[in-house]
């Protein structure tokens, strides 16, 4: 059970949060111009990394804000948390 530092509320228990999958997959601005393969790349393809992964999380039972998390999926270490729209930290 993670202890997650919501950028708006502070440290809260994991059960207040909802995981939202891989981060930084931007919705294409002009979907109709894309080929089936390009659209499928956006729609279906996810990296599912063992190691450092960028993820979306939502403080669903709190402020309801979405934010990003950098998590090592091999040991669940949360390396960074930053707001939507902010640049991901470089290592």
């Amino acid at each position, binding site marked *: *059970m*993670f*202890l997650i530092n919501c950028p708006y509320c502070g440290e809260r*228990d994991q059960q207040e949060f*909802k995981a*939202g999958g891989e981060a930084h997959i*931007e*919705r*294409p601005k*002009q*979907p*109709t111009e*894309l080929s*089936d393969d390009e*659209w*499928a790349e956006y*729609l279906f393809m996810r990296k599912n990394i063992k190691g450092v992964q960028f993820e*979306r999380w*939502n403080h*669903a039972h709190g402020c*309801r*804000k*979405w934010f990003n998390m950098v998590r090592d999926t091999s*040991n*669940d270490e949360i390396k960074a948390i930053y707001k*939507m*729209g902010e640049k991901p930290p470089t290592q």
Partner: protein
Amino acid sequence: MTKNLRVKSSEYIDETNRISFKFNGKTYHGFKGDTLASALLANDVHLVGRSFKYHRPRGIMTSGSEEPNAIVQINPGTNRTEPNVRATEVEIYDGLEASSQNCWPSVEFDIGGINNFLSPFFPAGFYYKTFMWPASFWKKYEFFIRHSAGLGKSPTSSDPDIYDHRNIHCDVLVVGAGIAGILAAKNAAKNNFKTFLVDEKNQLGGSTIFENNEFNKIDNKTPSEWLKKEIEELKNIKNLEIKTRTSVAAYHQYNYLLARENLTDHLEAKDKTNKIRQRLLKIRAKKVILATGALERPLIFNNNDRPGIMLSSAIKKYSEFYGVACGSKNVFFTNNDSAYESALSLYNKGINVEAIIDIRDQSESKIVKKIKEAGIKIYWSHSIVDTAGYKRLNSVSIMKLSNDFTSVTGSKISISCDCLGVAGGWTPAVHLYTQSGSKLKFDEEKEVFLPNQNTSTQISVGSCDGDFKIDEIIKNLNQKLKDNLNIKETDLDNIKVEIDQENSKRNIWLLPSDKPLGKTKPFVDYQNDATAKDIKLALREGFRSIEHVKRYTTTGMGTDQGKLGNMHALGIIADTAGVKMGELGTTTFRPPYTPLTFGTIVGRNVGKFFDIFRRTPMNDWHVQNKAEFENVGQWKRAWYYPNNGETMHQAVQRESKAARESAGILDASTLGKIDIQGSDASEFLNRVYTNAWSKLAIGKCRYGLMLNEDGMVYDDGVTTRLGENHYIMTTTTGGAANVLGKLEDYLQTEWPELDVYLTSVTDHYATASLCGPNSKKIIKKIIPDLDLSDENFPHMSFKEANIGHIQCRIMRISFTGEHSYEINVQASYGKDLWEKCMEAGKEFNITPYGTETMHLLRAEKGFIIVGQDTDGTMTPIDLQMDWIVSKKKYDFIGKRSLYRSDTMREDRKQLVGLLTDDPNIVLEEGAQIVSELNQNPVEMLGHVTSSYFSPNLNKSIALAVVRGGKDMIGKKLFIPMKNKNINVTVANPVFYDEKNERLNA
């Protein structure tokens, strides 16, 4: 008359408080302070169970939670019965009853014992190998296996006890209150850390509290005397909360631990009532100090499992702490000095110690000298090659070990005894440490797995970190506390320790016998009856990974998770495969450390607290009018209103007819409602719905379909434009929360530039839906000044009005196909509104109807219900709802996916109507649809999604999804059922009023 083996009074046993209890139907006596195990041993009862596979007689092996054999059923036949309880942990009380498990008809005479003689036929992987083929025989095998296996019985009536949860936040959590844990907690609390100390036993002090060995001294006192003084001082320390009888079950990430606090299990039945039995402590600690101690290992030799064979440390605890001698003729078998401490404890109490068999060449410690002086015979470089005695040990046979320790030589000596203490060295209890995700390292010198590192949030102290001697424990603990808690001085700086413990040991993981391995039974996992033979067989058959060997042989798979034998299993694998132990890695220790009851896990969340109920403001009226309810998500919705003993079918037929012939009223308060405001509200709706919204006039309503990005239908509902920048959206009852979440997600992450604000107002409004040809007249009666003409208030429009002083929002929208109104008022006026409608509708025989009639009426019109007629694989095109998908809009959620090659296939499942050839047959929802009856295998074309008998059409109707169904109108298909095939014809899904004439009726 049974023997009394109570040898010397102990301060932990209250001999003035005599307790009577039953074991396997027979009455015994013990004292307050006894465990079931210590009381049985005091009565000379060793045989307490049968092993799982071979049904071999087994005795009490340990004195703690690691016990593999003495697993009992508590209070059998009562509603408080509990299986798989370790007798070594049960504190006795008057009236306690316990019985053996896994034996029939009795532990003394067990029919399954025949398995022991058949054991050559039960090798590792026996069940996998034997019961696989032929597949059709599995049912017979399963019957046999289930009846002969079994670890206890679960209670059959409901649990009478109360359970609770408590959240704890602390600076320092100390797990384990042995000497290291006590000193750690004391110093943490003294330095102003909010500290929590837990221990699974009812008494603080671990094994040091009964450490009376004259050769060890702390500040010139025996360790037990010294520690008692320390414990006494804990009482005066602030910032410290102590929980005994509290076992940490799980250690999750970020220092989140679950512990079970046991409050009443040790009390008599009359004192258990109306008290919390167990409490689950959910602990979040800034720092965790693990002081979980070490477990003594047995030794692995032929027939090492007979009743009377115990851990040497357990014999010492029974003698020193409980004042019980485990035997009258005791022998010890050891590879280190520990057994000598146990032997000395017995000797000092005048209990006979026959001999000590030591696989080492020698030891020069004071305690060994003392044993020699006492005249106890020590056999150096000897090993036990066999034991005898079926239900109780009666002798051991020993031989001299060869120089390379792989065989035995010389003549066999038999030693008569009734109790054997086995000391195979100590294994740090690192279970919780590894559960936290931390890694172990193998210490070549100590030959144990140790915590690899201490971090700023977690340290291991004492013997669980490999410090087995008191002087090492105190010295290392002191440094770790200073480093980790950042403190300069501790109580431990000036403690003087004199110690006579020698670390000399000789590890031989599998001891040789004079017989070949195939003819011996050296048990590694007592609970699951896995022997060293099984492990070697698994290796011969090609298993290499420790995790695979464990599963194949079931070693370590019991309720005790192999706490005693895991190291031997690894050692045997390493020796056989010729690799170093450290390279093998260990198996994973999983929570819970000791089993938890379901009651503890669920706590108060049982019965009516299991889940939240949501009730509408009109709920009381529905209850008073005898509605039947159905669960829709967390909502309790009125399902139908039976009159005078009507069946559900009769009630629904009556309600459905009344709604179309005169007037019906439905409580629609559960529909999700989202208030949408902002200058970009129209643009936002354009992007989330498939149809266009910019041109919707203020005061008008529009039906919308929402897709997922994959093009599949996600939700639907009517949205009304209340103002230039203000909409109210309705969602399905079940989808309300998810739709809000999805909309918020897009607004926050994809379109943050949009000026839109979303507010869930589902609970703020009560909604009554009034329908039927007389609905207009009823509205006229309650709101006389509202112009209800089609010109002023047409279908799909909205008006604000007042019913008396109640403000309301009225939408003229219809889910039944009838002329109808949806009236929304502030939730607190919901029941008032409903009663006013009922009163005004009396002369029109207004009929309240529930969700079942609502479903039937909409099915007559071919209106879908998202989640019933769709399942996340249906596009709007599949639903024949092309009309609602805008061709002009550049983009909306899911639009691009509607043009993927897969979503454009002609042979996708499509929504159609089905009519049965016999109009009286009502299809079963979920029934499969085929076009050929004699195919093998038969091709499934689709299934029935909604099916009813329509009273307004006087025939059965159904909606279904059928592959390529759009082009099958008029085609004959079949529904194969168990006893008959039903003939159906594909039809247009709109069965009633195809031209929508009734909307303005």
